[in-house]
């Protein structure tokens, strides 16, 4: 089936919560879940010619489950220990994890984790994960190049995944 980009973009908006929730439930890591949910849609886009067009919800669900399953079984998924160059981007690299929040998925807890990053990673992480800002909005407000912000967000996510994992241990 030939892809209609506009329809696909509607599907992202329609199913993003479902796919994210599936990934979050399986990985129990907010930042891994966000990454895997993105990968689910990208994989769906790349393989759209294999889709019969009948049931996008079931198809996306299957892709998300497969992505998470492969991720959980992969030995490379462990983020710890952080490489030295990454640890240097934390505000207290040798510090103990903060006292565990009751609800690890709460905005307060996620903000607390973002707060452990050094600038410029902290502000982009807080804006994206806590303040409901899109990167394009942040680029407009700050005057910074969106590619720069993307790179920072990518790096911030890597650190946040490790911090989350550290808390779980």
């Amino acid at each position, binding site marked *: 089936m030939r892809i209609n*980009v506009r329809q696909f*973009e509607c599907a*992202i*908006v329609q199913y*993003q*919560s*479902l796919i*994210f*929730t*599936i990934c*979050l*439930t*399986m990985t*129990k890591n907010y930042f891994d879940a*966000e990454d895997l*949910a*993105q990968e689910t*849609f*990208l994989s769906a*886009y*790349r393989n759209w010619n294999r889709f019969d067009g009948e*049931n996008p*919800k*079931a*198809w996306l*669900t*299957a892709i998300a*489950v*497969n992505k*998470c*399953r492969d991720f*959980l*079984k992969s030995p490379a998924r462990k983020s710890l220990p952080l490489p030295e160059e990454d640890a240097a981007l934390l505000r207290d690299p040798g510090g103990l994890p903060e006292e565990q929040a009751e609800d690890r*998925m709460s905005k307060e807890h996620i903000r607390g984790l973002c707060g452990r990053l050094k600038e410029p990673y902290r502000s982009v992480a807080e804006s*994206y*994960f806590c303040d*409901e*800002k*899109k*990167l*394009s*909005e942040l680029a407009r407000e700050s005057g910074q190049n969106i590619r720069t912000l*993307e790179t920072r967000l990518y790096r911030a996510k890597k650190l946040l995944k490790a911090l989350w994992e550290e808390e779980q241990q």
Partner: protein
Amino acid sequence: MNGLFLPDGHVENQVLLDFSEGKLGPEEMLGVAEHLGSCEICAERLAEAFDSGKPSAPPAGFAEEVRRRLPQRETGAELFLYSARVVLAACAALFLVFSGTLRTLAGTQNSYLDITAPGFSAVEQISSRLNGFSQQILHWEVFQHAEKKK
């Protein structure tokens, strides 16, 4: 894995509900996921189980980030139009060079000497044909643009 699957090989309803609520142990979850990844019926049922619960919203910028990461596809039509524009630019450049327009723009006076002018008829012919060709490409592009707009 006992108790997870029905006799027909599909996943038990309660198991799907437990899956959606994160109540399955890691081994059980992976075992069920193995089936879900290739069974449209159970994948649909799992999605419904999640829909009946409390969904978690991704960050507000999620959809925009996915869109940004989508591969940029160059369709055949776009490549053709790009090539047409390149050819048009090349034709326009040749036309300018051979038609004397440049000299006119520079404002240089033609000096008339008593010299037999060399025969440029072949060049003029080529120039005229290229001009006609570039006009055709221009009309084609306008037509394509109008079609796209429809």
